[in-house]
């Protein structure tokens, strides 16, 4: 399994952010994590990346416990509120990210150049990040996550701040990556996009896993994913 959560629980004081959640994601699967704000989706992502430790239960990536740094090799991550230092240019950010992945000088330059083209930032890559729009920052974040050709991509609201054209571009890019066998864990509120892109979804509410199944099974019988989501979350 690419990702495995086994009874993962996270408490902040008395508040249960995630409670007894278990699921797994197969290699090459496009997996959506759905839920209303504050449901615990981002906490699951943060536990996977070892940004916060679970109160109980275990999480693993590629068979390695998420607490080991090696588990994060081959993992690309796009943060929900992506920020970069305003004194860095997009190019420097990509270069730094590639350097931290030990890509080597030639590979770093090649991949950064390719990524600038892929995210459509040609001509602006050397401007300071402080001058970028939210959409440009989001595309830069995606570029940074794709460096090093990761086997697993963890995307926390990747289309946040993008216009409809930008959203479609991201979806088309993710569709292309699917053909390369990449695994994706996607946190998103855009249920229509999730429905078009993902194979499987898990719906979380109040930290608990309500349902985990193939999208076709969840949203069958003439209902859209949105209809089912609203019904399940409202109880």
């Amino acid at each position, binding site marked *: 399994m690419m990702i495995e959560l086994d009874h993962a629980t996270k408490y902040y004081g008395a508040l249960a952010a995630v409670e007894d959640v278990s699921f797994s994601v197969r290699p090459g699967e496009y997996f959506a994590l759905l839920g209303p704000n504050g449901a615990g989706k981002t906490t699951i992502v943060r536990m996977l990346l070892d940004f916060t430790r679970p109160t109980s239960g275990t999480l693993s990536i590629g068979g390695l416990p998420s607490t080991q740094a090696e588990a*994060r090799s081959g993992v690309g991550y796009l943060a929900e509120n992506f920020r970069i230092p305003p004194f860095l240019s997009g190019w420097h950010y990509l270069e730094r990210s590639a350097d931290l992945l030990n890509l080597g000088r030639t590979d770093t330059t090649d991949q950064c150049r390719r990524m600038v083209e892929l995210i459509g930032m040609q001509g602006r890559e050397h401007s300071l990040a402080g001058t970028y729009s939210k959409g440009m920052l989001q595309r830069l974040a995606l570029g940074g996550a794709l460096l090093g050709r990761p086997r697993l991509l963890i995307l926390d609201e990747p289309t946040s701040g993008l216009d409809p054209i930008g959203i479609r571009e991201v979806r088309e890019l993710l569709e292309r990556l699917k053909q390369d066998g990449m695994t994706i864990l996607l946190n998103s509120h855009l249920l229509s996009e999730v429905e078009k892109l993902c194979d499987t979804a898990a719906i979380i509410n109040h930290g608990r896993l309500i349902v985990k199944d193939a999208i076709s099974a969840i949203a069958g019988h003439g209902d859209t994913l949105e209809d089912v989501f609203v019904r399940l979350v409202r109880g």
Partner: protein
Amino acid sequence: MSGMQAVPPILKICRYTIIDHVRQKSFIVMLLIGAAFVFFTRSCYHGNYMVNGQMLGAWTVAESIAKMSFHTIAFTMMFLAALLAVRAFSRDRDYGMQACILSKPITRGQYVTGKVLGLWALAFFCMFILHAMVFLIMALQAKVFMPAFLAASLLCSLNVLVVVMGALVLSLSMSDFVAFMAVMAITVISFVADGIHTLHQSQMLQAIIQPHGTGPQSDVTWRTVIYYLWPKISELEITAASLIDHGWLRGWGALYPLANILAYCLIAAALLLWRFRREEIL
């Protein structure tokens, strides 16, 4: 890796820490002010100084001015190091760099070690440059060569290290401003305590404050224990400055501040690693 040995992540984080701080205008301004201060002291080496009607020799004048400059630079650099260190983690967090770095196969220990080394190297480099300027001005203006001056600067770098680690540890548990004030308070108390201790040791003062016929008090009090266990930042600086006078450390007593600061460095490193391992990455 195209045949090249990969640079360890610690060194990469160290390099980026240095680059990011050097980019700051405030840092450059502070360094330039320091350099200007040293530059303006050059005229002091030419003056004719008389004490009790006796003209002081060039060596004595150079030594006195050099030692004053040495202490001023060393203390200012501790101040600067604390200022840089207290903001180091929060800056990385605010700019999203902590999440960027730690989402890669880099351990928290490597990140923290890289940060400490970067801040230490930067502050020490600045201190060494300013000390080297004093050394060169002495050599060129007063024709006085004091190689031990640079060795003293190296020894003082341990003070910078303990301040950096102390500031980093405290910044994880309190606001940056409070952490800065706490580190500076520890440093200032070290200087004040050493000053009081030196006064107490002086025979003249003892003769004044002690009743006639009673010997010096030798009881070990809690104040004495605290005094000896307190970070010996001031004493290490004085020990380093004594290198300028003698060119070597005098006696085993001179090793105590060194051992004390090294012990504090180890304690701060252990606390820093333990505390950062529990830190929530945002």
